């Protein structure tokens, strides 16, 4: 039996009928076409599906759509404003923090949350924050460098 839920995604209000077992990841990717959200494992091991739910970095593959009733969800598609990349996105571009790019959306959402919460993280805090986001390409060095470069007066 489908259930009607309402939620805000990237600032837009939606009312949707969803199966109770539908995950937030499926809802975002399949129902709303937000394919920037990635599925790497489906069981909360890799972090590629990370989105912000009421400003908290959340694995969308482990979250049921019906759990986010009334919440505000933010995805990678919302970080650039009016065609301008956020400071963090720009730092990822400039520092070569991207290779295959599949972990990038989750990595950016986790580190966006970090910098909003803690605009001056030290290296250890950065590594700790992204330790739930696996990357197989970069050895994390350039990702850490990019987050460091974007920290400071973080205004997106």
């Amino acid at each position, binding site marked *: 039996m489908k259930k009607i839920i309402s939620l805000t995604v990237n600032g837009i209000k939606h009312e949707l009928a969803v199966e109770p077992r539908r995950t937030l990841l499926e809802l975002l990717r399949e129902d709303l076409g937000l394919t920037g959200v990635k599925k790497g494992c489906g069981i909360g091991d890799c972090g590629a599906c990370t989105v912000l739910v009421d400003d908290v970095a959340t694995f969308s593959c482990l979250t049921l759509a019906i759990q986010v009733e009334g919440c505000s969800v933010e995805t990678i598609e919302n970080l650039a404003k009016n065609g301008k990349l956020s400071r963090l996105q720009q730092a990822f571009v400039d520092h*070569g923090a*991207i*290779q295959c790019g599949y972990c990038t959306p989750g990595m950016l959402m986790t580190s966006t949350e970090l910098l909003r919460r803690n605009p001056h993280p030290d290296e250890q805090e950065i590594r700790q924050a992204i330790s739930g986001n*696996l990357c*197989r390409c970069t050895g994390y*060095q350039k990702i850490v460098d990019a987050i460091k470069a974007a920290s400071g007066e973080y205004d997106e």
Partner: protein
Amino acid sequence: MSKYRILNTRAPRVDAVDKVTGKALYTDDLKRPGLLAGAILHSPLAHARILNIDTSRAENLAGVRAVVTHREAGTVPYGVSPARYDETIFCHDKVRYVGDEIAAVAAVDLDTALEAVSLIKVDFEELPIVLDGYTAMDEGQPQLHKMYKNNICAKVNWHFGDIEKGRRQSHIIRTDHLTSKMQDGAFLEPQSILAEVDSQGGLTMWSSTQAPHYVQRTLAMALRLPLHKVRVIKPAVGGGFGPKASCSSAELATCLLAMKTGKPVKFTFDREQVFLHSRARHQFFHTMTTGVKKDGTLSFLEHHCILDGGAYASFGIATIYYSGSLLGGPYRLRNMKYDGYRVVTNKPACGAQRGHGAVIARALFEIQLDRIAEELGMDPIELRLKNVMEAGETTCNELYVSSFGMREALEAVRDSAAWKKKRSMGGKTRGKGKGIGAACGFFVSGAGYPIYRSRTYHCTVITKVDDVGGGVTVSSGAADIGQGSDTVLAMITAEELGLSLDDVKIVSGDSNLSVDLGAYSSRTTLMTGTACRDAARDVKRQILEAVANKLDVAPTTLDLKDGLVMSLSEEIDFSELRKEYLQEHKGFMDLPDGPDLTFREASRIAFLEIGSIIGTGKYKPPPLGGSFKGAAVGTSPAFGCSAQVAEVSVDLETGQVSVDKITGAHDCGFAINRTQVEGQMQGSMMMGMGEALMEQIIYDTKGRIVNANLAEYKIPTAMDMPHLDAIIVESNEPHGPYGAKEVGEGAIMPVIPSILNAIYDATGVRIEELPVTPERIIAAMQESKKKAKT
């Protein structure tokens, strides 16, 4: 100042903005009208005869559009190496590993497809299984394939020089062992496939592949289609590292479902299926005996290796050759014997993975050098420096190194990591929990020969100038799987034509565009880069000739630079050309008005003169290597080399290893993009460190993987990784574009041995089995204490 404007810089990747905004499309992001969902039935047993497959209940389920087994698919054998075609799309007589593909379903949605798969009933007769690669060749073991007697899929017996002579010359001779475990690629994007047929009978498959060309060939052969009717497109790919290089049963099955239903079908692996399909790193059992003279000069290497390759050959023939051939460098070694056996077992098939075949062999050899240095009382880096090859030398197995910054790389890591100071205790700190270790590596820069026997060009590139003028489009079959080859092609083209990167469009990874053998054997920068450079030069020549003709000057007096046509001699009056261009563009914005003719004008004028301007480039290596059996594997137009120093701390109570710092230097010939070269090096460090310390596929006694997920199959996280220092060495390779050669795989070579040598320095014990887990360290330390007492 660099003589280049764009090359050798840190230009951002051409796909960077798409990847940080979520716009980059991977196969699983694609949709087609009427899309069906695919699902596959995998074998639950490691070895069994198939007695009967009953698909009737699945076929009758509402929403199911097709169910296919070997009856529909046929049994055309395929694989990677034509001499070892041992797979069929679906199993027909036997299943040979847990995960072997038996049937596939297309249905209106994934839930229905999965339910249908669960309704397929297969009757099996269970057969005894062989899981241990080390004993798989023994008499009396269960046999997997009729074509592989005693489960031997391939063997190599090489003898270069004279090892008996080497033995006689040796002052120290020692024998050591190293065993590894099967590794998983653990790329973040699970394989995904979307297939569709058109009304002319053409098949198009979008797939997360590393090698569209080889996959196109295999699809056409196994599905009985004309080659030109098969098109393989590679969208953005979320990492490959080797396992995505071979055509998979899943790709074939998805195409078959699309052909049967006439509808587009998508099939995406879940994470467990990535592990089951594998085609990743083999398990290696190496034994090496190495001799050196009193002064540390290497005198011989005798090398024995068994590779556990799982159930099918896949890339394994190349793997076993690489295991032996790539020890020919980077040291002067005149006498080398190699006996390699690749066996089949009832486990997922192994194939190529970063550093193909050579990683564990390299690890053991570098550990041996460390142990020999200790016996000689020599610094291990000094021992290596004493033996390194120089540019212009040929290895005993006939690999010619045309550029070689091995010495520079070793000296760079030695100095940068303050090796001498840290090692100055001369072993006095040994066993006190802090250690430092060094190692080198050697790797091909593109395989010298294609996988199938052919005179084919390894790649072609077509660069077309926009008919309207202004920019160019580079078309190539090359596969950017995240390593950044599209950016390399764009940078080369922009450099040659004096354009900005924004005016170069790259379309790639499509078998319709050109032949390109794909992203494997670290070949793209050297090979496709050369073809791309030549295509751009061809375009430049045509534009300048057309413009020069119009101006009535010699083409050699003109050049393209900074988006402009430059005169190399006297000032030229461009005003007639300018006038014509402006006449065509009344009302347009941003019209050229400076004193120089712009590329935009020149390219348009050239089109008006001669029509579409298309430049082409191609690349094929010259004949390479010796004439002995298997001499082709290991050949390359160039070789990369690398050195590394690892620093570790080991908790002597718990055996826990932390890697504190890695300093690596890699000779890439010339860095087309400095950031990307460092990125390849740092990624290699991480993958090697994972293999050294934590990664292992674990099987139960029935051949089932017990850790087929990314929580229990551990890869390094940001918390595990130390600071990674990447030093670029540039030796100017004569056979590479602008002097460039590989970095993607070579950089992994020294990682495992440098860490293992550092662990020895920290603990005083040698571990002969990977991964070096805390349990293994503690056990070795206890053993060593026991020995010291007796």
